[in-house]
């Protein structure tokens, strides 16, 4: 290999990483300034005791925690509820979890997709009571399906500014975001980028579920600050 080639390739790789990191940090800075448009005061206040913490988290520069340790486990059990666990992950707090050598049986996507929205939501919240589990290798098919749904059907509805299932879309965005934090799969991060860029009128509808909206924005903030993509 010529010396020039040998030197230029790592330099190109470094420069790619630098450009990506720079772009993500620019978006992070933008989110720090603009999150209040998505979550105005009344919506933030409806979070009660979490309001201050969410506000401080989204306004911070260093809001990040490395969750990649989770990928090493077969399954994680926890006593806290799905919402509490998701809230803790979103705010980069410690979460109580117990590793297990066995996980639940695989989820049949055919049957899952035939269920009503509230049933699907229940199944996802139950299965991912510890939301870190969505990042495990065994959950790849479920995660891919959630990503597909977001980026094909849900995305179209939000782009066209028609009615959509706010709770379900936010649940998927949260789970897809957690998967991105653990796997560093850029496609999962980009789903959050994409939804953040959708018409504000569609995003404003998400205020009907302030807790899910807040956790989505906090997870997004962590992803944008994450190194090593």
């Amino acid at each position, binding site marked *: 290999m010529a010396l020039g080639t040998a030197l230029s390739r790592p330099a190109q790789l470094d*420069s790619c990483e630098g*450009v*990506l990191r720079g772009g993500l940090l*620019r978006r992070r800075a933008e989110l720090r300034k603009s999150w209040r448009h998505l979550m105005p005061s009344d919506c933030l206040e409806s979070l009660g005791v979490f309001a201050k913490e969410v506000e401080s988290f989204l306004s911070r520069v260093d809001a990040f925690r490395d969750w990649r340790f989770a990928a090493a486990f077969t399954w994680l059990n926890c006593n806290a509820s799905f919402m509490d666990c998701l809230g803790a992950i979103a705010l980069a707090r410690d979460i109580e979890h117990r590793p297990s050598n066995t996980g639940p049986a695989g989820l049949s996507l055919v049957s899952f997709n035939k269920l009503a929205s509230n049933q699907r939501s229940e199944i996802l919240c139950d299965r991912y009571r510890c939301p870190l589990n969505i990042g495990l290798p065994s959950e790849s098919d479920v995660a891919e399906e959630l*990503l*597909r749904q977001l980026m094909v059907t849900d995305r179209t509805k939000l782009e066209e500014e028609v009615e959509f299932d706010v709770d379900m879309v936010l649940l998927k965005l949260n789970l897809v975001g957690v998967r991105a934090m653990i796997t560093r799969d850029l496609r999962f991060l980009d789903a959050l980028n*994409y939804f953040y*860029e959708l018409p504000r009128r569609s995003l404003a509808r998400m205020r009907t579920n302030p807790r899910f909206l807040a956790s989505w924005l906090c997870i997004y903030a962590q992803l944008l600050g994450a190194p090593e993509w």
Partner: protein
Amino acid sequence: MRVAVIAGSLKAGMRIAREIENIAGVDIFVVVCNVRMKSLLQRWSREFLSALTSPSCWTLATKGCSYAQQGKLIILSGPLDDATSIQRLRSLQCDVGLHAANVIYREPTISAFRVGILNAHIGILPRYRGRCVVEWSVLQRDPTGVTVFFIDPGIDTGNRIVLREVIPSNGWKRVEALKNMLFECDARLYRKALEALMQPGVQFEANDISKGRRYYVMSKVFKQIVNEILTERANLA
């Protein structure tokens, strides 16, 4: 071998037909689909304007007339997967279809061709399936290029890959320009693919989807990053 170019416009169809019409043993038809189900007036005024702006306007017109006179130019008025359109396609008794229209193919359309429909996908299969694969390849520092494969009703999941060509992104500063260049490789690569198919004992490479991922439309922030990567690379070179 009987081949039909399935095109979204006369111009697109004729561009590919011209590239492959000199292959010995190939009999070509051009099938123009009504992609967005436009009215007759809308459709033909669009075709007319497109032809007028083409530098090879006269060649396009004469070629189009020549194909029409030979009964080799088929204009579909209904959707491609409509029973009448499928019947018309079947009647051509083609071996291979060449995808050049912005349509999704359903099973009855695909099976109207004896061997199948080829697609020149602007990404390297099996690794990059779906949308914005050029952008994703650049972002993930993987090679860019085109894969010619036989489609199935899934998203770039057809199992038979005929050929794959790595076409570097070096020197391109904007991803849209890079994509246009890759799209325009279709005629040349269809030619190569047809020539390969006409060889005795042709073998296909399996499109093992477990070795790749499906990609989706890319966000604005990532597209900007991709353009910055391309610019930086071009400046480094």
